[in-house]
């Protein structure tokens, strides 16, 4: 990679209070990790409440789990794991100046995310129909904002990647949103056994 594009990218995206682009990337990453910690703690509260109620009402929990389809849950888990993989690839290609592969992998990530949401939509409408939402058992699932937020963010960096904003000198947003998307995946990995696999 030539030195001039490096300098141009530094000049365009480096904010005035940072001495170097590297310092800016490191700082942004610290900020993102801290934010992810807050998300985990928020869900941590829900998990604690969930675990406690499960101990108090074990029969209700088993009954609640019968309303969920394990196969659909497993398919969704696979979708999210795949989306995390394509996200990693997108970050890799963005950091190695491969624009078209970046855009393609972001597109694939979006595709998996939408597939996940479509399945969720059918599950939710079914539970609304059964009168289970909102309720004690399913309030964990009700805080389902993160995937939607993730989709908006991934779309945004896809547009920017397509525009050629990112290069090995500056790919901070791809990196950060990648981290966020892995968190969505991670939370689901915990939710899946908690909600679908209890018996």
């Amino acid at each position, binding site marked *: 990679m030539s030195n001039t594009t490096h300098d141009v990218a530094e000049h365009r995206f480096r904010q*005035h209070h940072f001495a170097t682009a590297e310092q800016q990337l490191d700082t942004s990453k610290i900020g993102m990790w801290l934010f992810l910690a807050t998300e985990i703690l928020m869900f941590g509260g*829900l998990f604690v409440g969930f675990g406690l109620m499960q101990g108090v009402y074990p029969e209700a929990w088993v009954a609640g789990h019968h309303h969920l389809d394990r196969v659909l849950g497993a398919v969704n888990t696979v979708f999210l794991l795949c989306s995390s993989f394509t996200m990693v690839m997108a970050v890799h290609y963005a950091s190695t100046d491969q624009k078209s592969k970046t855009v393609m992998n972001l597109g694939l990530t979006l595709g998996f995310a939408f597939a996940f949401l479509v399945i969720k939509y059918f599950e939710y409408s079914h539970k609304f129909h059964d009168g289970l939402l909102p309720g004690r058992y399913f309030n964990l699932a009700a805080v389902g904002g993160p995937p939607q937020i993730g989709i908006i963010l991934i779309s945004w960096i896809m547009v920017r990647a397509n525009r050629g904003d990112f290069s090995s000198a500056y790919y901070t947003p791809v990196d950060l949103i990648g981290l966020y998307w892995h968190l969505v995946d991670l939370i689901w990995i915990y939710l899946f056994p908690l909600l679908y696999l209890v018996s």
Partner: protein
Amino acid sequence: MADIITTPHISGHADHHDVDYLHDGKGLKSWLTTVDHKRIGVMYLWSILFMFFLGGVFAMMIRLELLTPKETIMSAETYNKVFTLHGAIMVFLFIIPSVPAALANFVLPLMLGAKDVAFPKLNLFSWYIYMAGAFIAVAAMVTGGVDTGWTFYTPYSTTTDGSVALMTFAAFVLGFSSILTGVNFVATIHKLRAPGMGWFDMPLFCWGIYATALIQVLATPVLAITLLLLIMERTFGIGIFDPKLGGDPVLFQHFFWFYSHPAVYIMILPGMAIISEIIPTFSQKTIFGYRAIAFSSVAIALVSFIVWGHHMFTSGQSQLASAIFSFITFFVAVPSAIKTFNWIVTMYKGSVAFNAPMLYALSFLLLFGIGGLTGIFLGAVSVDIHLHDTYFVVAHFHYVMMGSTVIAFLGGLHYWWPKMFGRMYSEPAARVACALVFIGFNATFLPQFVLGSRGMPRRYYNYLPEFQALHQASTVGSWILGLGFLIMAGYLFASLRKKMDAPANPWHSRTLEWQTSSPPITHNFHEIPAVGGGPYDYYRPVGNGRNA
């Protein structure tokens, strides 16, 4: 590293770079769209001072009502709402953002020799979130009010009338403002220290703010989810906290105090951080035990997460849990005492100047001593069973929240006022106000220790006739306190009408924020300072001693 030290200062464009931050851009819009940490700090300052005024008015109303048993100026229902609003406003809208979001926002980057905080736009965004939370809180007040107390205990909070959901939502929103400030400061301290400034070259204020920011980031989300669940319980009846629906009200208490006890340290640690600056400056002496003070801040932050159960000794939690929580609570006294003794020793053989900030710092030492030690009483399970929910508790936490944090905040305000606004206030008036605040505060809250130990329950509207004399002493004290604040508002506003007259370093401090002009230029420093020595090298000559 060499390229970091080169600065963007171009002598040809001196006029833009030399304008102080107050005059760089005119009009309301230039303030509302600013990303300058100093301007955002000032906007926060005026916002929280307004909230302090509002919460203070409610406090005066509470004290006036308690002048006599039964009705004095308001009904019992109004009284419940007034003390709830006093607590909620003071905690969520004033104390928590007071030092971090207002004062630290202004001075932290300056102390580190940075041009701004790590995420300037996020910083502005957090102010807007704060304002949104404030408006929602005001909306909750005018649309029915809240009578639950600031702790929102279930099941009362899920069944009572009024705007509980809206007020809870306001606290939820304000929590995010606090989280973003915390994220910003942690990243700033990690990555934006001036070249050559290691962790142990930072002023101790930065250590205190770092510990605070960690708690803000790690505790506040739990409050957020708790309040969200409370709102869902109230609106949909999901049955997690309300025993009628099969929920567990003690779970709410656990969740609430898992945040709200660390939140106590969100309030006190920045106060301690300010004291660690004022005492060496006005003693003109190197701080004693730098590392001990720095590590004790972090120790307090860590221990703060495992003491929440001491709020729940009477909730029916197991005796073993109570004993463990009690023991860990005693442990908090160790780092606090380490700090206190180090501050006292710092003054020993120093050339102590009794300017207004130092008077506040000395008041802090005394009041924090009382507030902290009465906390040990309450941390002992058997004593707490007797004193639980009495005025003793009220007096204890006011000695910590107001006698320590607010006093330290006022000390910091007086200390950095010349830096923030470029003007000196009237020193004699400031000393008088400080004396009145100190006397008024003690007159208000010392009698409450006695009231509590004799069995006066907190939050009660009515009381037995034998308590009246002490209640009246407390109310008279609140008037003295109010007078002190009135005088303070008078001379501070008067100073703003003067021409700028503050020297760059009126207190002869060695920390970096005093090495730039008062008020600072927009980019803080003409040249990014290269740090050679420690922040408390008072054995060196003042001026460019550190930056040479």
